[in-house]
Protein backbone atom coordinates (compact mmCIF):
# COMPACT_ATOMS: atom_id res chain seq x y z
CA UNK A 1 0.00 0.00 0.00
CA UNK A 2 1.63 3.21 -1.11
CA UNK A 3 1.62 6.38 0.88
CA UNK A 4 -0.68 9.08 -0.50
CA UNK A 5 0.78 11.22 -3.28
CA UNK A 6 -0.07 14.49 -4.96
CA UNK A 7 -1.01 14.59 -8.63
CA UNK A 8 2.48 15.92 -9.46
CA UNK A 9 4.17 13.07 -7.60
CA UNK A 10 1.95 10.49 -9.32
CA UNK A 11 2.82 11.71 -12.81
CA UNK A 12 6.52 11.79 -11.99
CA UNK A 13 6.47 8.32 -10.44
CA UNK A 14 4.68 6.89 -13.47
CA UNK A 15 7.27 8.38 -15.85
CA UNK A 16 10.17 7.17 -13.72
CA UNK A 17 8.80 3.64 -13.62
CA UNK A 18 8.52 3.86 -9.83
CA UNK A 19 5.72 2.83 -7.46
CA UNK A 20 6.04 6.03 -5.52
CA UNK A 21 8.16 9.16 -5.15
CA UNK A 22 8.60 11.77 -2.41
CA UNK A 23 9.61 15.42 -2.52
CA UNK A 24 13.39 15.71 -2.76
CA UNK A 25 13.89 12.46 -4.69
CA UNK A 26 16.19 12.84 -7.67
CA UNK A 27 14.74 10.74 -10.50
CA UNK A 28 15.16 10.13 -14.22
CA UNK A 29 11.94 10.36 -16.22
CA UNK A 30 10.72 9.56 -19.72
CA UNK A 31 9.58 12.63 -21.60
CA UNK A 32 6.29 12.55 -23.58
CA UNK A 33 6.99 15.81 -25.36
CA UNK A 34 10.15 17.92 -25.73
CA UNK A 35 9.58 21.48 -26.91
CA UNK A 36 11.82 24.30 -28.14
CA UNK A 37 11.39 27.59 -30.02
CA UNK A 38 13.40 29.67 -32.44
CA UNK A 39 15.66 31.16 -29.78
CA UNK A 40 16.22 28.08 -27.65
CA UNK A 41 16.35 25.42 -30.38
CA UNK A 42 19.71 26.48 -31.91
CA UNK A 43 21.55 25.81 -28.64
CA UNK A 44 19.57 22.60 -28.07
CA UNK A 45 20.45 21.41 -31.57
CA UNK A 46 24.13 22.14 -30.93
CA UNK A 47 23.92 20.03 -27.76
CA UNK A 48 22.11 17.23 -29.62
CA UNK A 49 24.85 17.19 -32.23
CA UNK A 50 27.57 17.13 -29.57
CA UNK A 51 25.97 14.10 -27.94
CA UNK A 52 26.33 12.49 -31.34
CA UNK A 53 23.22 10.36 -31.79
CA UNK A 54 22.17 9.91 -35.39
CA UNK A 55 18.46 10.18 -34.74
CA UNK A 56 16.19 11.96 -32.29
CA UNK A 57 14.60 9.65 -29.72
CA UNK A 58 11.15 9.93 -31.34
CA UNK A 59 10.22 12.36 -34.13
CA UNK A 60 6.58 12.33 -32.94
CA UNK A 61 7.48 13.51 -29.45
CA UNK A 62 9.34 16.70 -30.26
CA UNK A 63 7.73 20.08 -30.99
CA UNK A 64 9.68 22.92 -32.59
CA UNK A 65 7.84 26.23 -32.86
CA UNK A 66 8.92 29.50 -34.45
CA UNK A 67 7.33 32.18 -32.27
CA UNK A 68 9.75 34.48 -30.44
CA UNK A 69 11.50 36.51 -33.15
CA UNK A 70 9.15 35.80 -36.07
CA UNK A 71 8.19 37.06 -38.57
CA UNK A 72 11.98 37.05 -38.68
CA UNK A 73 13.07 40.27 -37.11
CA UNK A 74 16.59 40.52 -38.58
CA UNK A 75 19.24 38.36 -40.25
CA UNK A 76 20.54 36.62 -37.09
CA UNK A 77 16.97 35.75 -36.06
CA UNK A 78 16.25 34.46 -39.57
CA UNK A 79 19.38 32.28 -39.36
CA UNK A 80 18.24 30.83 -36.03
CA UNK A 81 14.77 30.06 -37.35
CA UNK A 82 16.25 28.40 -40.43
CA UNK A 83 18.59 26.30 -38.32
CA UNK A 84 15.58 25.00 -36.41
CA UNK A 85 13.64 24.36 -39.61
CA UNK A 86 16.53 22.48 -41.24
CA UNK A 87 16.85 20.27 -38.17
CA UNK A 88 13.11 19.58 -38.20
CA UNK A 89 13.23 18.56 -41.85
CA UNK A 90 16.36 16.44 -41.42
CA UNK A 91 14.94 14.50 -38.48
CA UNK A 92 11.39 14.40 -39.87
CA UNK A 93 9.95 16.14 -36.81
CA UNK A 94 6.18 15.92 -37.20
CA UNK A 95 5.37 18.87 -34.95
CA UNK A 96 7.33 21.67 -36.54
CA UNK A 97 5.24 24.85 -36.79
CA UNK A 98 6.06 28.13 -38.42
CA UNK A 99 4.03 31.18 -39.46
CA UNK A 100 0.80 30.46 -41.21
CA UNK A 101 -0.08 27.27 -39.37
CA UNK A 102 1.32 27.93 -35.93
CA UNK A 103 1.52 30.72 -33.42
CA UNK A 104 2.82 31.01 -29.87
CA UNK A 105 4.06 27.60 -28.65
CA UNK A 106 2.08 27.55 -25.40
CA UNK A 107 -1.11 28.48 -27.24
CA UNK A 108 -0.83 26.05 -30.16
CA UNK A 109 0.33 22.89 -28.41
CA UNK A 110 -2.91 22.46 -26.43
CA UNK A 111 -4.91 23.73 -29.41
CA UNK A 112 -3.47 20.96 -31.58
CA UNK A 113 -4.12 18.31 -28.94
CA UNK A 114 -0.44 17.58 -28.37
CA UNK A 115 -0.72 17.39 -24.57
CA UNK A 116 -3.20 15.31 -22.59
CA UNK A 117 -3.72 14.80 -18.84
CA UNK A 118 -1.01 12.62 -17.33
CA UNK A 119 1.69 13.65 -19.82
CA UNK A 120 5.19 14.79 -18.87
CA UNK A 121 6.36 17.77 -20.93
CA UNK A 122 9.74 19.47 -20.90
CA UNK A 123 10.18 22.72 -22.80
CA UNK A 124 13.07 25.06 -23.43
CA UNK A 125 10.93 27.99 -22.38
CA UNK A 126 10.03 29.04 -18.85
CA UNK A 127 6.30 29.21 -19.62
CA UNK A 128 6.14 25.52 -20.48
CA UNK A 129 4.39 25.27 -17.11
CA UNK A 130 1.24 26.39 -19.01
CA UNK A 131 0.25 22.79 -19.90
CA UNK A 132 -0.22 21.96 -16.24
CA UNK A 133 -3.68 23.41 -16.84
CA UNK A 134 -4.44 20.12 -18.61
CA UNK A 135 -3.43 17.98 -15.62
CA UNK A 136 -0.01 17.23 -17.09
CA UNK A 137 3.38 17.69 -15.44
CA UNK A 138 5.03 20.39 -17.50
CA UNK A 139 8.15 22.39 -16.75
CA UNK A 140 10.66 24.77 -18.30
CA UNK A 141 14.29 23.76 -18.76
CA UNK A 142 17.32 25.10 -20.60
CA UNK A 143 18.60 24.23 -24.05
CA UNK A 144 21.13 21.69 -22.80
CA UNK A 145 18.44 19.71 -20.99
CA UNK A 146 16.30 19.92 -24.12
CA UNK A 147 19.12 18.77 -26.41
CA UNK A 148 19.73 15.84 -24.06
CA UNK A 149 15.99 15.04 -24.06
CA UNK A 150 15.86 15.07 -27.87
CA UNK A 151 18.72 12.59 -27.92
CA UNK A 152 17.75 10.31 -25.03
CA UNK A 153 14.03 10.88 -24.45
CA UNK A 154 14.89 11.30 -20.76
CA UNK A 155 15.47 14.04 -18.22
CA UNK A 156 16.60 14.24 -14.62
CA UNK A 157 14.34 15.97 -12.16
CA UNK A 158 14.06 16.55 -8.43
CA UNK A 159 10.55 15.82 -7.14
CA UNK A 160 9.04 19.10 -5.91
CA UNK A 161 6.94 19.50 -2.80
CA UNK A 162 3.51 21.01 -3.38
CA UNK A 163 1.88 24.28 -2.40
CA UNK A 164 -1.87 23.99 -2.77
CA UNK A 165 -3.82 27.15 -3.53
CA UNK A 166 -7.53 26.83 -2.74
CA UNK A 167 -9.73 29.41 -4.42
CA UNK A 168 -13.23 29.79 -3.04
CA UNK A 169 -16.19 32.08 -3.56
CA UNK A 170 -17.66 33.80 -6.58
CA UNK A 171 -15.67 35.98 -8.94
CA UNK A 172 -16.55 39.65 -9.15
CA UNK A 173 -17.35 41.09 -12.58
CA UNK A 174 -14.35 41.41 -14.91
CA UNK A 175 -12.14 39.31 -12.65
CA UNK A 176 -10.56 36.32 -14.36
CA UNK A 177 -7.61 33.94 -14.35
CA UNK A 178 -5.03 36.69 -14.83
CA UNK A 179 -6.30 38.61 -11.81
CA UNK A 180 -6.31 35.44 -9.70
CA UNK A 181 -2.72 34.56 -10.55
CA UNK A 182 -1.50 38.15 -10.09
CA UNK A 183 -3.21 38.27 -6.70
CA UNK A 184 -1.58 34.96 -5.80
CA UNK A 185 1.87 36.19 -6.85
CA UNK A 186 1.32 39.29 -4.75
CA UNK A 187 0.75 36.97 -1.78
CA UNK A 188 3.60 34.53 -2.43
CA UNK A 189 6.26 36.78 -3.95
CA UNK A 190 8.56 35.92 -6.86
CA UNK A 191 10.36 33.37 -4.74
CA UNK A 192 7.39 32.16 -2.70
CA UNK A 193 6.94 28.95 -4.67
CA UNK A 194 10.59 28.37 -5.52
CA UNK A 195 11.17 24.78 -6.70
CA UNK A 196 7.61 23.85 -5.73
CA UNK A 197 4.62 22.46 -7.54
CA UNK A 198 1.79 25.00 -7.47
CA UNK A 199 -1.45 23.08 -7.31
CA UNK A 200 -4.47 25.20 -8.27
CA UNK A 201 -7.46 23.82 -6.36
CA UNK A 202 -10.67 24.78 -4.61
CA UNK A 203 -14.30 24.87 -5.72
CA UNK A 204 -13.83 27.87 -7.97
CA UNK A 205 -11.19 26.39 -10.30
CA UNK A 206 -13.53 23.59 -11.31
CA UNK A 207 -15.75 26.22 -12.93
CA UNK A 208 -12.98 28.05 -14.75
CA UNK A 209 -12.89 27.62 -18.54
CA UNK A 210 -9.67 26.24 -20.06
CA UNK A 211 -8.38 29.60 -21.32
CA UNK A 212 -8.30 30.97 -17.79
CA UNK A 213 -6.63 27.83 -16.45
CA UNK A 214 -3.89 28.20 -19.07
CA UNK A 215 -3.41 31.81 -17.93
CA UNK A 216 -2.98 30.79 -14.31
CA UNK A 217 -0.67 27.82 -14.93
CA UNK A 218 1.36 29.99 -17.33
CA UNK A 219 2.48 32.32 -14.53
CA UNK A 220 3.36 29.66 -11.95
CA UNK A 221 6.99 30.19 -12.96
CA UNK A 222 6.76 33.83 -11.90
CA UNK A 223 6.47 32.56 -8.32
CA UNK A 224 9.56 30.42 -8.83
CA UNK A 225 7.54 27.23 -9.20
CA UNK A 226 8.75 24.12 -10.99
CA UNK A 227 5.25 23.49 -12.34
CA UNK A 228 1.67 24.63 -11.99
CA UNK A 229 -1.12 22.05 -12.16
CA UNK A 230 -4.89 21.64 -12.17
CA UNK A 231 -6.61 18.31 -11.57
CA UNK A 232 -8.27 17.27 -14.85
CA UNK A 233 -12.06 17.25 -14.83
CA UNK A 234 -14.97 17.23 -17.31
CA UNK A 235 -13.97 20.62 -18.68
CA UNK A 236 -10.47 19.28 -19.36
CA UNK A 237 -11.76 16.09 -20.94
CA UNK A 238 -14.20 17.93 -23.20
CA UNK A 239 -11.38 20.19 -24.34
CA UNK A 240 -9.02 17.40 -25.31
CA UNK A 241 -11.71 15.13 -26.76
CA UNK A 242 -12.30 17.75 -29.44
CA UNK A 243 -8.62 17.84 -30.33
CA UNK A 244 -7.05 14.40 -30.08
CA UNK A 245 -7.88 10.71 -29.96
CA UNK A 246 -5.08 10.09 -27.48
CA UNK A 247 -6.32 8.69 -24.16
CA UNK A 248 -5.67 10.86 -21.11
CA UNK A 249 -4.49 9.48 -17.79
CA UNK A 250 -6.50 11.21 -15.09
CA UNK A 251 -4.63 11.63 -11.81
CA UNK A 252 -5.86 13.31 -8.67
CA UNK A 253 -4.06 14.18 -5.46
CA UNK A 254 -4.80 11.65 -2.69
CA UNK A 255 -6.65 13.07 0.32
CA UNK A 256 -3.80 12.38 2.76
CA UNK A 257 -0.99 13.57 0.48
CA UNK A 258 1.73 15.57 2.15
CA UNK A 259 1.66 19.25 1.23
CA UNK A 260 4.24 21.88 2.07
CA UNK A 261 1.62 24.57 2.46
CA UNK A 262 -2.07 25.28 1.84
CA UNK A 263 -3.13 28.82 0.99
CA UNK A 264 -6.84 29.60 1.05
CA UNK A 265 -7.94 32.47 -1.12
CA UNK A 266 -11.39 34.02 -0.87
CA UNK A 267 -12.00 35.54 -4.27
CA UNK A 268 -15.04 37.59 -3.25
CA UNK A 269 -12.82 40.52 -2.36
CA UNK A 270 -10.51 40.33 -5.34
CA UNK A 271 -10.75 43.19 -7.85
CA UNK A 272 -9.00 43.31 -11.20
CA UNK A 273 -5.29 43.39 -10.42
CA UNK A 274 -2.25 45.21 -11.80
CA UNK A 275 1.40 44.26 -11.32
CA UNK A 276 3.42 47.45 -11.12
CA UNK A 277 6.99 47.83 -12.35
CA UNK A 278 9.36 46.12 -12.04
CA UNK A 279 8.17 42.77 -10.67
CA UNK A 280 5.24 40.41 -11.28
CA UNK A 281 4.68 40.30 -7.50
CA UNK A 282 4.36 44.08 -7.11
CA UNK A 283 0.58 43.72 -7.29
CA UNK A 284 -2.19 46.16 -6.46
CA UNK A 285 -5.92 46.30 -7.05
CA UNK A 286 -6.71 48.46 -10.06
CA UNK A 287 -8.65 50.87 -7.83
CA UNK A 288 -5.38 51.62 -6.03
CA UNK A 289 -3.41 52.30 -9.20
CA UNK A 290 -3.67 56.07 -9.09
CA UNK A 291 -3.29 58.16 -12.23
CA UNK A 292 -0.88 56.41 -14.60
CA UNK A 293 -1.06 57.58 -18.22
CA UNK A 294 -0.07 54.90 -20.72
CA UNK A 295 1.67 55.15 -24.08
CA UNK A 296 0.97 51.60 -25.19
CA UNK A 297 -1.36 48.74 -24.41
CA UNK A 298 -0.52 45.21 -25.54
CA UNK A 299 -3.08 42.40 -25.57
CA UNK A 300 -1.65 39.00 -26.46
CA UNK A 301 1.09 36.53 -25.42
CA UNK A 302 1.03 32.95 -24.15
CA UNK A 303 -0.61 34.34 -21.01
CA UNK A 304 -3.62 36.13 -22.49
CA UNK A 305 -3.63 35.73 -26.27
CA UNK A 306 -6.51 33.27 -26.47
CA UNK A 307 -10.01 33.66 -27.83
CA UNK A 308 -11.69 34.37 -24.48
CA UNK A 309 -9.15 37.16 -23.88
CA UNK A 310 -9.86 38.72 -27.28
CA UNK A 311 -13.61 38.43 -26.70
CA UNK A 312 -13.32 40.34 -23.42
CA UNK A 313 -11.22 43.05 -25.06
CA UNK A 314 -13.55 43.44 -28.03
CA UNK A 315 -16.61 43.58 -25.77
CA UNK A 316 -15.12 46.61 -24.01
CA UNK A 317 -13.77 48.24 -27.17
CA UNK A 318 -16.95 47.89 -29.23
CA UNK A 319 -18.21 51.30 -30.20
CA UNK A 320 -15.31 52.98 -28.40
CA UNK A 321 -11.98 54.41 -29.56
CA UNK A 322 -8.45 54.00 -28.26
CA UNK A 323 -7.35 57.22 -26.53
CA UNK A 324 -5.30 59.65 -28.55
CA UNK A 325 -1.62 59.28 -27.69
CA UNK A 326 -2.01 55.61 -26.73
CA UNK A 327 -1.13 52.72 -29.04
CA UNK A 328 -3.12 49.48 -28.77
CA UNK A 329 -1.42 46.40 -30.19
CA UNK A 330 -3.33 43.12 -30.27
CA UNK A 331 -1.73 39.81 -31.22
CA UNK A 332 -3.93 36.70 -31.39
CA UNK A 333 -1.98 33.76 -29.97
CA UNK A 334 -2.40 31.43 -32.94
CA UNK A 335 -3.48 31.25 -36.57
CA UNK A 336 -6.61 29.39 -35.47
CA UNK A 337 -7.52 32.08 -32.93
CA UNK A 338 -6.82 34.75 -35.55
CA UNK A 339 -9.30 33.06 -37.92
CA UNK A 340 -11.88 32.60 -35.17
CA UNK A 341 -11.51 36.26 -34.24
CA UNK A 342 -12.14 37.26 -37.85
CA UNK A 343 -15.27 35.11 -38.05
CA UNK A 344 -16.68 36.43 -34.80
CA UNK A 345 -16.17 40.04 -35.95
CA UNK A 346 -13.66 40.63 -33.15
CA UNK A 347 -10.87 41.89 -35.37
CA UNK A 348 -13.20 44.36 -37.07
CA UNK A 349 -14.24 45.77 -33.70
CA UNK A 350 -10.61 46.07 -32.62
CA UNK A 351 -9.42 47.75 -35.81
CA UNK A 352 -12.40 50.12 -35.82
CA UNK A 353 -11.45 51.11 -32.29
CA UNK A 354 -7.93 51.96 -33.43
CA UNK A 355 -6.03 48.80 -32.57
CA UNK A 356 -3.16 47.38 -34.59
CA UNK A 357 -3.49 43.61 -35.07
CA UNK A 358 -0.31 41.57 -35.47
CA UNK A 359 0.56 38.06 -36.69
CA UNK A 360 0.54 35.25 -34.10
CA UNK A 361 3.89 35.47 -32.30
CA UNK A 362 5.38 36.53 -28.95
CA UNK A 363 5.89 40.05 -30.23
CA UNK A 364 6.81 42.75 -27.70
CA UNK A 365 6.40 40.51 -24.64
CA UNK A 366 10.12 39.89 -24.29
CA UNK A 367 11.29 43.08 -25.97
CA UNK A 368 11.68 41.34 -29.31
CA UNK A 369 9.74 43.40 -31.82
CA UNK A 370 6.23 44.60 -32.73
CA UNK A 371 5.96 47.25 -30.06
CA UNK A 372 9.15 48.12 -28.17
CA UNK A 373 9.03 50.94 -25.62
CA UNK A 374 11.13 54.09 -25.62
CA UNK A 375 12.77 55.72 -22.62
CA UNK A 376 10.12 56.92 -20.20
CA UNK A 377 7.21 55.13 -21.89
CA UNK A 378 4.65 53.15 -19.93
CA UNK A 379 2.69 50.16 -21.13
CA UNK A 380 -0.17 48.06 -19.81
CA UNK A 381 0.37 44.54 -21.02
CA UNK A 382 -1.38 41.19 -20.71
CA UNK A 383 2.01 39.47 -20.65
CA UNK A 384 3.76 37.71 -17.76
CA UNK A 385 6.93 39.61 -16.78
CA UNK A 386 7.79 43.23 -16.20
CA UNK A 387 11.39 43.26 -14.99
CA UNK A 388 13.50 46.29 -15.95
CA UNK A 389 13.91 46.52 -19.72
CA UNK A 390 11.54 43.65 -20.43
CA UNK A 391 9.70 45.43 -23.23
CA UNK A 392 12.37 47.85 -24.40
CA UNK A 393 14.33 50.72 -22.92
CA UNK A 394 15.60 50.10 -19.35
CA UNK A 395 13.78 53.28 -18.37
CA UNK A 396 10.41 52.13 -19.70
CA UNK A 397 7.73 50.65 -17.45
CA UNK A 398 5.44 47.67 -17.89
CA UNK A 399 2.25 47.16 -15.89
CA UNK A 400 0.83 43.63 -16.10
CA UNK A 401 -2.92 43.09 -16.18
CA UNK A 402 -5.70 41.01 -17.67
CA UNK A 403 -7.47 41.80 -20.95
CA UNK A 404 -10.33 43.73 -19.30
CA UNK A 405 -8.04 46.22 -17.55
CA UNK A 406 -5.88 46.40 -20.68
CA UNK A 407 -8.85 47.28 -22.90
CA UNK A 408 -10.22 49.85 -20.45
CA UNK A 409 -6.76 51.41 -20.15
CA UNK A 410 -6.51 51.67 -23.93
CA UNK A 411 -9.81 53.59 -24.07
CA UNK A 412 -9.02 55.98 -21.24
CA UNK A 413 -5.32 56.38 -21.99
CA UNK A 414 -4.39 55.53 -18.41
CA UNK A 415 -4.57 52.51 -16.11
CA UNK A 416 -8.30 51.97 -15.68
CA UNK A 417 -10.85 49.50 -14.42
CA UNK A 418 -13.44 48.21 -16.89
CA UNK A 419 -16.08 49.52 -14.48
CA UNK A 420 -15.00 53.05 -15.34
CA UNK A 421 -16.28 52.57 -18.88
CA UNK A 422 -19.81 52.40 -17.54
CA UNK A 423 -20.56 49.00 -19.01
Amino acid at each position, binding site marked *: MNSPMTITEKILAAHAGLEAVSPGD*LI*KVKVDLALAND*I*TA*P*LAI*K*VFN*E*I*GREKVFDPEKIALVAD*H*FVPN*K*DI*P*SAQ*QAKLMKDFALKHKITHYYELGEGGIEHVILPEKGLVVPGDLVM*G*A*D*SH*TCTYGALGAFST*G*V*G*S*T*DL*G*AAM*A*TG*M*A*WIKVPSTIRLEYMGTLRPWVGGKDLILFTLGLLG*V*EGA*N*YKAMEFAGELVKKLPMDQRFTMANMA*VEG*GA*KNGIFEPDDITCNYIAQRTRREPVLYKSDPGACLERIVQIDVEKIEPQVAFPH*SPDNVKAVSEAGHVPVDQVFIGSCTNGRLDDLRIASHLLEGRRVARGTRLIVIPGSTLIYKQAIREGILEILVDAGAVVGPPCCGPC*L*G*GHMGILAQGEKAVSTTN*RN*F*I*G*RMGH*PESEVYLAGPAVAAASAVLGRIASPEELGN
Partner: protein
Amino acid sequence: MKLKGHVWKFGDNVDTDAIIPARFLNVSDRELLARNCFADLRPEFSKSVRPGDMVVAGSNFGCGSSREHAPLAIKAAGVSVVIARSFARIFYRNAFNIGLPILECERAFRSFDEGSSIEVDLESGEMRSGNGRIQVYAKPIPTFMREIVQAGGLVPYITAKGSL
Protein backbone atom coordinates in the same frame (compact mmCIF):
# COMPACT_ATOMS: atom_id res chain seq x y z
CA MET B 1 39.34 23.07 -6.94
CA LYS B 2 40.48 26.42 -5.55
CA LEU B 3 39.54 29.68 -7.22
CA LYS B 4 40.75 33.22 -6.65
CA GLY B 5 39.21 36.39 -8.01
CA HIS B 6 37.58 39.76 -7.44
CA VAL B 7 33.99 40.20 -6.35
CA TRP B 8 31.20 41.75 -8.40
CA LYS B 9 28.16 42.25 -6.16
CA PHE B 10 24.54 42.11 -7.26
CA GLY B 11 21.35 42.35 -5.23
CA ASP B 12 18.22 40.22 -5.02
CA ASN B 13 16.09 38.99 -7.92
CA VAL B 14 18.65 39.59 -10.68
CA ASP B 15 16.58 38.29 -13.56
CA THR B 16 17.62 36.80 -16.89
CA ASP B 17 16.67 39.99 -18.76
CA ALA B 18 19.20 41.80 -16.59
CA ILE B 19 21.86 39.13 -17.17
CA ILE B 20 21.40 39.14 -20.96
CA PRO B 21 18.73 41.44 -22.47
CA ALA B 22 16.42 39.74 -24.94
CA ARG B 23 17.60 41.87 -27.84
CA PHE B 24 20.87 39.89 -27.74
CA LEU B 25 19.20 36.49 -27.93
CA ASN B 26 19.39 36.21 -31.70
CA VAL B 27 22.95 34.94 -31.42
CA SER B 28 24.52 31.98 -29.70
CA ASP B 29 28.11 33.13 -30.23
CA ARG B 30 29.95 33.20 -26.90
CA GLU B 31 31.99 36.31 -27.65
CA LEU B 32 28.86 38.33 -28.36
CA LEU B 33 27.08 37.01 -25.28
CA ALA B 34 30.06 37.88 -23.08
CA ARG B 35 30.20 41.37 -24.49
CA ASN B 36 26.56 41.99 -23.57
CA CYS B 37 26.53 40.34 -20.16
CA PHE B 38 24.70 42.64 -17.68
CA ALA B 39 24.56 45.23 -20.50
CA ASP B 40 21.74 47.29 -18.97
CA LEU B 41 22.26 46.56 -15.27
CA ARG B 42 26.07 47.11 -15.07
CA PRO B 43 27.21 48.55 -18.42
CA GLU B 44 30.83 48.65 -17.23
CA PHE B 45 30.86 44.91 -16.45
CA SER B 46 31.80 43.49 -19.83
CA LYS B 47 34.74 45.84 -20.31
CA SER B 48 36.10 45.55 -16.77
CA VAL B 49 35.53 41.92 -15.80
CA ARG B 50 38.70 39.83 -15.58
CA PRO B 51 38.94 36.06 -16.06
CA GLY B 52 38.47 34.39 -12.68
CA ASP B 53 36.25 37.12 -11.26
CA MET B 54 33.28 36.06 -9.16
CA VAL B 55 29.66 37.12 -8.96
CA VAL B 56 28.26 37.39 -5.42
CA ALA B 57 24.52 37.99 -5.23
CA GLY B 58 21.46 38.04 -3.00
CA SER B 59 18.42 35.81 -3.34
CA ASN B 60 16.63 34.36 -6.37
CA PHE B 61 19.55 34.94 -8.75
CA GLY B 62 18.68 34.17 -12.35
CA CYS B 63 14.90 34.38 -12.01
CA GLY B 64 12.72 34.82 -15.07
CA SER B 65 13.35 33.08 -18.36
CA SER B 66 14.78 29.62 -19.03
CA ARG B 67 17.28 31.11 -21.46
CA GLU B 68 20.59 29.26 -21.20
CA HIS B 69 22.18 32.34 -22.72
CA ALA B 70 22.17 33.77 -19.18
CA PRO B 71 24.67 31.39 -17.52
CA LEU B 72 26.51 31.11 -20.88
CA ALA B 73 27.05 34.87 -20.99
CA ILE B 74 28.36 34.87 -17.42
CA LYS B 75 30.69 31.94 -18.12
CA ALA B 76 31.86 33.42 -21.44
CA ALA B 77 32.67 36.68 -19.66
CA GLY B 78 35.21 34.74 -17.63
CA VAL B 79 33.37 34.46 -14.32
CA SER B 80 34.63 31.42 -12.45
CA VAL B 81 31.77 30.94 -9.99
CA VAL B 82 28.45 32.52 -9.01
CA ILE B 83 27.71 32.62 -5.27
CA ALA B 84 24.20 33.62 -4.22
CA ARG B 85 21.90 33.39 -1.27
CA SER B 86 19.52 31.39 -3.48
CA PHE B 87 19.03 30.59 -7.16
CA ALA B 88 15.98 30.42 -9.38
CA ARG B 89 15.49 26.80 -10.37
CA ILE B 90 15.95 26.91 -14.15
CA PHE B 91 19.12 29.03 -13.84
CA TYR B 92 20.38 26.57 -11.20
CA ARG B 93 20.15 23.55 -13.46
CA ASN B 94 21.29 25.45 -16.56
CA ALA B 95 24.45 26.61 -14.79
CA PHE B 96 25.45 23.06 -13.84
CA ASN B 97 24.49 21.72 -17.25
CA ILE B 98 26.86 24.11 -19.03
CA GLY B 99 29.64 23.73 -16.48
CA LEU B 100 29.35 27.06 -14.64
CA PRO B 101 29.98 26.30 -10.95
CA ILE B 102 27.52 27.87 -8.53
CA LEU B 103 27.35 27.90 -4.74
CA GLU B 104 24.49 28.71 -2.39
CA CYS B 105 25.52 30.71 0.65
CA GLU B 106 23.41 32.75 3.07
CA ARG B 107 26.18 35.02 4.24
CA ALA B 108 28.46 35.67 1.27
CA PHE B 109 26.62 38.81 0.17
CA ARG B 110 26.98 40.41 3.61
CA SER B 111 30.54 39.24 4.13
CA PHE B 112 32.41 40.31 1.00
CA ASP B 113 32.76 43.79 -0.49
CA GLU B 114 32.53 44.83 -4.10
CA GLY B 115 35.94 44.58 -5.72
CA SER B 116 37.52 42.65 -2.86
CA SER B 117 39.69 39.64 -3.56
CA ILE B 118 38.42 36.29 -2.28
CA GLU B 119 39.37 32.61 -2.47
CA VAL B 120 36.80 29.89 -3.03
CA ASP B 121 37.21 26.14 -2.55
CA LEU B 122 34.56 24.46 -4.72
CA GLU B 123 34.96 21.06 -3.01
CA SER B 124 34.52 22.20 0.57
CA GLY B 125 32.45 25.31 -0.15
CA GLU B 126 34.82 27.41 1.97
CA MET B 127 35.17 31.05 0.95
CA ARG B 128 37.65 33.42 2.51
CA SER B 129 38.68 37.02 2.07
CA GLY B 130 42.15 37.74 0.66
CA ASN B 131 43.57 38.53 4.09
CA GLY B 132 42.04 35.40 5.56
CA ARG B 133 40.06 37.33 8.18
CA ILE B 134 36.60 36.45 6.88
CA GLN B 135 35.56 32.84 6.29
CA VAL B 136 32.12 31.63 5.27
CA TYR B 137 30.83 28.30 4.05
CA ALA B 138 28.52 27.53 1.17
CA LYS B 139 26.02 24.66 1.02
CA PRO B 140 27.78 21.62 -0.47
CA ILE B 141 26.93 20.93 -4.09
CA PRO B 142 24.60 17.87 -4.25
CA THR B 143 26.35 14.67 -5.37
CA PHE B 144 24.57 14.37 -8.72
CA MET B 145 25.36 18.01 -9.60
CA ARG B 146 28.96 17.45 -8.55
CA GLU B 147 29.19 14.57 -11.05
CA ILE B 148 27.94 16.87 -13.79
CA VAL B 149 30.36 19.65 -12.82
CA GLN B 150 33.27 17.20 -12.64
CA ALA B 151 32.40 15.89 -16.09
CA GLY B 152 32.36 19.48 -17.34
CA GLY B 153 28.63 19.70 -17.99
CA LEU B 154 25.65 17.53 -18.92
CA VAL B 155 26.87 16.72 -22.42
CA PRO B 156 30.24 15.26 -21.39
CA TYR B 157 28.41 13.48 -18.56
CA ILE B 158 26.02 11.80 -21.00
CA THR B 159 28.77 11.11 -23.53
CA ALA B 160 30.93 9.44 -20.90
CA LYS B 161 28.09 7.36 -19.45
CA GLY B 162 26.47 6.53 -22.80
CA SER B 163 23.11 7.68 -21.49
CA LEU B 164 21.55 10.06 -18.97
